[in-house]
C-alpha cells in the first residue's frame, strides 16, 4: 500500500524535474548587434543622433511609431489621436496600463515633461530636434528663449490625455512624436536640464521600450534584457547586446563565427557582400540606401555661380559606371535629396546623362575655353579648385570625381581633412570650393524632416532661393497628402533646375545577418532596427 501511494508522488517529482531540466536546457535567446559608431549617451532627450536612431523602439517608445514599409504612423504609447481640421491641435489618448522599466505608470505628465526638456534653453545639444520637430509647438520658442515658464501648447487634460497646440500646421508632427522617447518625470525632473546629459540616469535610462537597460561598458557593449511588462507583450528575444565594432573586417569574422547576428550603421564592402551571398554562415541583405553621395559646390564662389557651369558638372559623371565599379551595382541613381520612398516625384526627376561633350559645350557657353594644358580658362583664370573630402568612401569617390572632371578640362585638387574639420569649420559658404559629401535622406519616414538644413538661413552650400524656402515651408505645413506631394515635386524640380547639388549615386545599404536571426521584412535597416520587438533567434 505504501509503495503504491508513493508512486504518484515520485512520478510527479520526475515530471517536475524533467520540466525544470527542459527549461534550464533552453538557451537564452540573446541577439548580438554591432553598430559601426559609438554612443555618447542613452538619453533621447539630450542626444539625438545615435540614441534616437538606434535606441528608440528598443529602450524607449514614442507616442507613435513607424516600423513598417507603409510609413504611416501607428499607435504606440498613444492608442489614438485626433487632429483638428486646421492641423493646429492634436489630442492624444495615452494607452492605459503602460509602465516604465521601474514599474511606475506612464501618464500625460511624463510626455509633457519630456517634450519640455527638448524645448528647454539649457538643452543646446538638441537644437536640431528643436528646430526640426518642436519649435512648432506653441510656446516652445518662448520657453526656450526664457520668456515663459513652460510650454503653453502642451496641456495635460487628464492622466491619459494630452492636448498639443501648434503655431502653424506641421505635417511631420506625428514623425516627431515617434522619434522622441518618453522618460518618467518623477525620476528626471529634479535633475537640472544643463546637468542632464552627464547624469548617471542618462547612461542607465528608464524607458518604456521592449528592452530594459542592464549594463553599458562604453566602447564595448550595451546589454539589455527583455521587458516582461512591455505593453505589446514580451519580446521573443530574451536579451539584446549591442557591440561597438568599428572595423568591418572584425565584424565579418564575428559573423562567420556566429557570434554576431546583425549590424546596423555598419557598411559592408561590395566584395564582402558578394562573397557572403554564397557563404552559408551569413545572410547577405541589401536594403534601400539612405545615403546620397554628392558633389557639392559653393554657390557663392565665382567659379560655380553660373548655372551652366553646374549643369556641365552634372553631365561630367558616369553614374552607372561608378555605381557598378565602386558599389557592386547595388543602389540607385537619382537626382533628388528626397528619398524616392517618401516622394514618388524623386524618381521622376531626370538624371543628367553622362555627356562630357555636352559638359564642354556648356562650359564654353559660360565663357570657359581650353587652355594650352587642357585646363579650362577664362580671362586668364584657370578652372582649378580644391575638392574637399574626408577619409573613407568619401575620399574614394573624390578620386573618381577628380578623374571625371579632368576629362572635361577642370582641375580638381584633392584636399583631405578629417570629418570634424569639414562639418565644424569648412562646410560653410566661403570656406570651401567643392566637396565630396554623403547626405542622408530616408532615415525618417517623412520628406519634410531634415529639410530645414536647406533653408537660406541654414544653407551650408550658399544656395539661397526664396522660392525654395517657400516650398519647404509650404510642404511641411500642407496637411493634404496630395498637396504635399505636388509641393515636394515642385521643390525637387526647382532644385534640379538650379542644380543645388550634383547627385552622384545612392548606394544600397549592404548588411550581413546571421541565418539564425529571424528578421522582419523591411525596406531599410533603420526600419528593421525599429522592429526589434519582432526579432527572433532560431535554435
Amino acid at each position, binding site marked *: 500500500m505504501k509503495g503504491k501511494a508513493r508512486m504518484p508522488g515520485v512520478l510527479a517529482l520526475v515530471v517536475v524535474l524533467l520540466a525544470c531540466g527542459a527549461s534550464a536546457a533552453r538557451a537564452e535567446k540573446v541577439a548580438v548587434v554591432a553598430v559601426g559608431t559609438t554612443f555618447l549617451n542613452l538619453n533621447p532627450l539630450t542626444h539625438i543622433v545615435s540614441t534616437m536612431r538606434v535606441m528608440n523602439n528598443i529602450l524607449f517608445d514614442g507616442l507613435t511609431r513607424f516600423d513598417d514599409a507603409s510609413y504611416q504612423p501607428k499607435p504606440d504609447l498613444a492608442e489614438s489621436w485626433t487632429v483638428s481640421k486646421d492641423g493646429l491641435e492634436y489630442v492624444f489618448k495615452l494607452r492605459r496600463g503602460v509602465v516604465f522599466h521601474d514599474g511606475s505608470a506612464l501618464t500625460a505628465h511624463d510626455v509633457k515633461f519630456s517634450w519640455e526638456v527638448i524645448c528647454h534653453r539649457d538643452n543646446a545639444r538638441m537644437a536640431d530636434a528643436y528646430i526640426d520637430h518642436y519649435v512648432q509647438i506653441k510656446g516652445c520658442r518662448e520657453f526656450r528663449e526664457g520668456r515663459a515658464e513652460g510650454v503653453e501648447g502642451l496641456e495635460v487634460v487628464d492622466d491619459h490625455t494630452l492636448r498639443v497646440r501648434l503655431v502653424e500646421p506641421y505635417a511631420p508632427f506625428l514623425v516627431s512624436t515617434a522619434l522622441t522617447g518618453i522618460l518618467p518625470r518623477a525620476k528626471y525632473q529634479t535633475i537640472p536640464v544643463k546637468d542632464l*546629459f552627464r547624469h548617471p540616469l542618462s547612461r542607465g535610462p528608464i524607458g518604456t521600450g521592449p528592452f530594459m537597460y542592464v549594463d553599458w561598458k562604453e566602447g564595448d557593449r550595451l546589454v539589455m534584457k527583455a521587458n516582461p511588462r512591455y505593453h505589446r507583450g514580451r519580446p521573443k528575444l530574451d536579451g539584446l547586446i549591442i557591440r561597438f565594432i568599428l572595423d568591418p573586417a572584425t565584424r565579418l569574422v564575428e559573423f562567420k563565427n556566429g557570434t554576431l547576428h546583425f549590424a546596423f550603421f555598419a557598411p559592408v564592402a561590395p566584395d564582402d557582400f558578394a562573397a557572403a551571398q554564397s557563404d552559408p554562415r551569413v545572410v547577405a541583405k541589401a536594403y534601400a540606401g539612405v545615403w546620397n553621395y554628392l558633389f557639392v559646390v559653393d554657390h557663392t564662389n565665382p567659379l560655380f555661380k553660373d548655372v551652366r557651369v553646374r549643369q556641365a558638372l552634372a553631365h561630367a559623371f558616369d553614374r552607372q559606371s561608378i555605381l557598378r565599379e565602386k558599389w557592386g551595382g547595388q543602389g540607385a541613381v537619382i537626382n533628388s535629396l528626397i528619398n524616392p520612398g517618401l516622394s514618388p516625384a524623386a524618381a521622376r526627376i531626370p538624371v543628367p546623362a553622362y555627356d562630357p561633350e555636352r559638359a564642354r559645350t556648356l562650359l564654353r557657353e559660360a565663357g570657359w575655353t581650353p587652355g594650352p594644358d587642357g585646363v579650362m580658362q577664362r580671362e586668364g583664370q584657370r578652372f582649378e579648385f580644391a575638392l574637399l573630402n574626408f577619409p573613407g568612401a568619401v575620399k574614394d569617390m573624390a578620386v573618381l570625381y577628380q578623374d571625371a572632371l579632368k576629362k572635361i578640362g577642370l582641375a580638381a585638387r584633392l584636399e583631405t581633412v578629417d570629418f570634424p574639420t569639414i562639418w565644424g569649420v569648412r562646410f560653410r559658404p566661403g570656406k570651401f570650393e567643392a566637396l565630396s559629401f554623403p547626405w542622408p535622406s530616408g532615415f525618417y519616414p517623412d520628406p519634410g524632416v531634415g529639410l530645414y538644413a536647406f533653408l537660406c538661413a541654414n544653407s551650408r552650400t550658399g544656395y539661397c532661393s526664396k522660392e525654395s524656402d517657400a516650398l519647404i515651408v509650404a510642404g511641411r505645413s500642407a496637411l493634404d497628402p496630395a498637396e504635399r506631394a505636388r509641393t515636394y515635386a515642385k521643390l525637387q524640380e526647382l532644385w534640379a533646375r538650379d542644380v543645388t547639388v550634383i547627385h552622384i549615386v545612392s548606394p544600397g545599404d549592404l548588411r550581413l545577418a546571421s541565418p539564425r536571426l529571424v528578421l522582419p521584412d523591411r525596406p531599410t535597416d533603420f526600419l528593421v532596427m525599429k522592429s526589434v520587438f519582432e526579432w527572433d533567434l532560431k535554435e
Partner: protein
Amino acid sequence: MPVLLGIGLVSFAIVRLAPGDPVALLVDTSLLSPAELARFREQLGLTGSLPAQFARLVGELATGRLHSLRTGQPVLEVLLDRLPVTGALLGSAIALALILGVPAGVLSARRPYSRLDNCLTVAALGGLSLPSFWFALVLMWVFAGLLRWLPASGTGPTTKLEYGALDMVPYFVLPTLVLALSILPPIMRYTRSAMLEALGQEYVRTARGKGLSEWRVVYRHALRNALLSVVTVVGMLLPILVGATAVIESVFAMPGLGRLVVEAAVSRDYPTIMTLNFMTAAVVLVTNVLVDLTYVLLDPRIRLE
C-alpha cells in the same frame, strides 16, 4: 611637476591650434542664437582666454572635476574605467616580448652568423617591417575566422550577461600577441648586441678560465650586464607601445585607453585629450625612474644619489 605642466601646455597649444570646433561636432551651431551658443560654450568651459582655459582645465583635472565634452562623464573616471584593459594588454605584451625576445637574443649572440642567428635576424626584420594592424587582421582571420580557436574581438563572451577574469583571458591572447610581436624584434636585437659585447669582455674569459659552466658564464655573468641595455630599450619602447594600442584596440574592439585616444581626437574632446597626454607623460616619466631603479638592482656598482 614642471615637466608635466610643460608637456600639458604644449599639448594644449597643439590641440587648440588644430582646426575643428568641438561645439560644432556636438550641435549644428547655425541653429543656435549667439546667446545660446555662448551659454553652451560656457557650460563646456570653452569661454575666456586660452591661458584662462588652460588654468581652469588644470585646476579641474587636479580636483577630478574635469568632464568629457563628448560624453559629459568625469574624465578621470572614464580613464580609470578603461585603464585595466590597456594595462593588461601592455603588461602581458611586455612580459611576452621579454620572455621570447631575451632568450632569442641570447641564442643569437651565442651563435653569431649561424643559420639560427640569420633566421632570427630575418624574423626580426620582418617583424619590424610588417604593420601591426595588418598583422592583427591576419591573426584574427587565421585563429578566429578559420581555426576558430580564439574569439575575434571584444573583452568577454556575449553569451553571458556577467563574466569573470578567466572568461576574458582568450580575448586578450591575439591582441597581446600582436603588441608583443611589435616590440619583440628590437628587444631581441638589443639583447643580441649587448650579449655579443658582454661575451667579448675579459671577465667572461676569466670566468671560463676558472672552469665555470657555460650556462653560468652566459646567464649569471654576461646576461646580467647585457640586461642594462634591454631595460633601457624597454623604457624607450613603452611610448611606442602605448601608441600601438590605439590601432590594436580599434581592430579588436577593446574598450581601452588607446581607443579612447582615437575617439577623443576625432571629436576634439579637449579635456580627454589633455588628460590622456598628461597621463602618458606621467607614465613615461615614471617608467624612466623605474628603469633607473632597475639599473641599481642589476648593477651593484650603480648607486642612487
